[in-house]
């Protein structure tokens, strides 16, 4: 893969991650800029310190904004923004 192809592939993931961060900040009324959340930081408990009520809110928000239902998924999908991106945009994972 050329460096331009690598950059394009990275940009696709970063774009999905950015969309997720904006959704999290907006839906959960966080007082931080979306970019402050990193792709790999933990989201629950440690990290963004979201709780189970926040998860419910995010389930609804993800279905509304991305058309993806994660209700039966394991908690691991919320392991990080980047992990969530794999679920929301499976093309990222398939080509990862």
């Amino acid at each position: 893969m050329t460096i331009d192809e690598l950059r394009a592939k990275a940009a696709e993931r970063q774009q999905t991650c950015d969309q997720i961060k904006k959704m999290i900040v907006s839906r959960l009324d966080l007082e931080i800029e979306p970019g402050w959340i990193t792709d790999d930081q933990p989201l629950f408990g440690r990290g963004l310190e979201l709780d189970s009520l926040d998860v419910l809110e995010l389930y609804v928000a993800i279905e509304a904004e991305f058309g993806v239902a994660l209700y039966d998924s394991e908690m691991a999908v919320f392991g990080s923004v980047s992990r969530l991106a794999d679920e929301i945009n499976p093309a990222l994972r398939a080509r990862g």
Partner: protein
Amino acid sequence: MTNVLAATHPEGTVYGEIGDATVPLRFSASPEALSEEYTALRERAAVIDLGGHRLIEITGPAAVEFAQRVLARDVEYLTSDRCMMSLVLDEDGRIVDQVIAFGREDGILLESSCGAGARLLEHLRERNDEGAEIADRSEDLAIVGLEGPYAWGVVGRLIDAELASLPFESVAEATWDGVDVVFARTGFTGEYGYQMIVPRESAPGLWSLSVEHARPAGQEALELAMLEVRQPMPRHEATPGASVIEIGANWLVDITKESFVGREAVLEAFESGAGRSTVGFTCAVGVPAPGTRLMAGDQVIGEVVHAVHSVGLNATLGLARVDRDLAAAGLELSAGGVGVTTLTSPYIVPKSWSVPII
């Protein structure tokens, strides 16, 4: 710093010097030691000698004001039933240490990371404009940790089963064998984690009882498990000149807090968008040394920060700092002539995420 538990550790324990501390790396010289200790931590329960973590007490009328200024997260209303992890930064926004701050009735108790306590103590004393009372409590207190998907079961056998289900980062006063214990639900590895702060003379007894119910795990197993869930480890990641943003430890900084040492520098680094970003990687062969160049084709795009063999992945696991436009999972790159693949965190899913406390 003298290891108070050294006399209780088995013959053959392998020690290492980390910063100002001598800590058990593995509890046996067997080649299988790391794997067995790691497996206990990830599959069952492990007891951890946290003797390399220094306890620093900040008290007096100015304690909270001082702590609020030197910690990167908001501790103004940290009550005695709560604790939180935070970075301590210098004026240039560089990481001095990653600490756990415990709210206390008369101030704040800080737990340094492994081997970083002396440096942290010096940093705090140099900046004590408020005149807070700063004391090194490691002379009279010690910490024993528990980590693992069934660590909660050990808590019941040691002290009180009800403590096991404390919410994350909650703290309770308890007693064990007639002595006061500061008991906290914490965790470094994504598994259920607890810490018990006890008088130093009681630590060997608590440790001996703990190892009847959980396997001891050394610093190597602990750090591997931390890496697998992208828990920042300043001693490996805070390379000279690296900003908090490049390290990806933003979540240990409360940027909405009005003022703290290092805030302006961190904010400037964030807003400038300059510098590199940290991403995890794996490779099938070898463990590249820190500083090994990361390549995309024949172009240098970054360098390895830290790498080890992951027992859980049965492959190399590392962190690299790369150009921002290539900081993403799923890319095929190379390091030292070996193909590497960038990863999505967490690199191992903790078993505790699917094991309820009962």
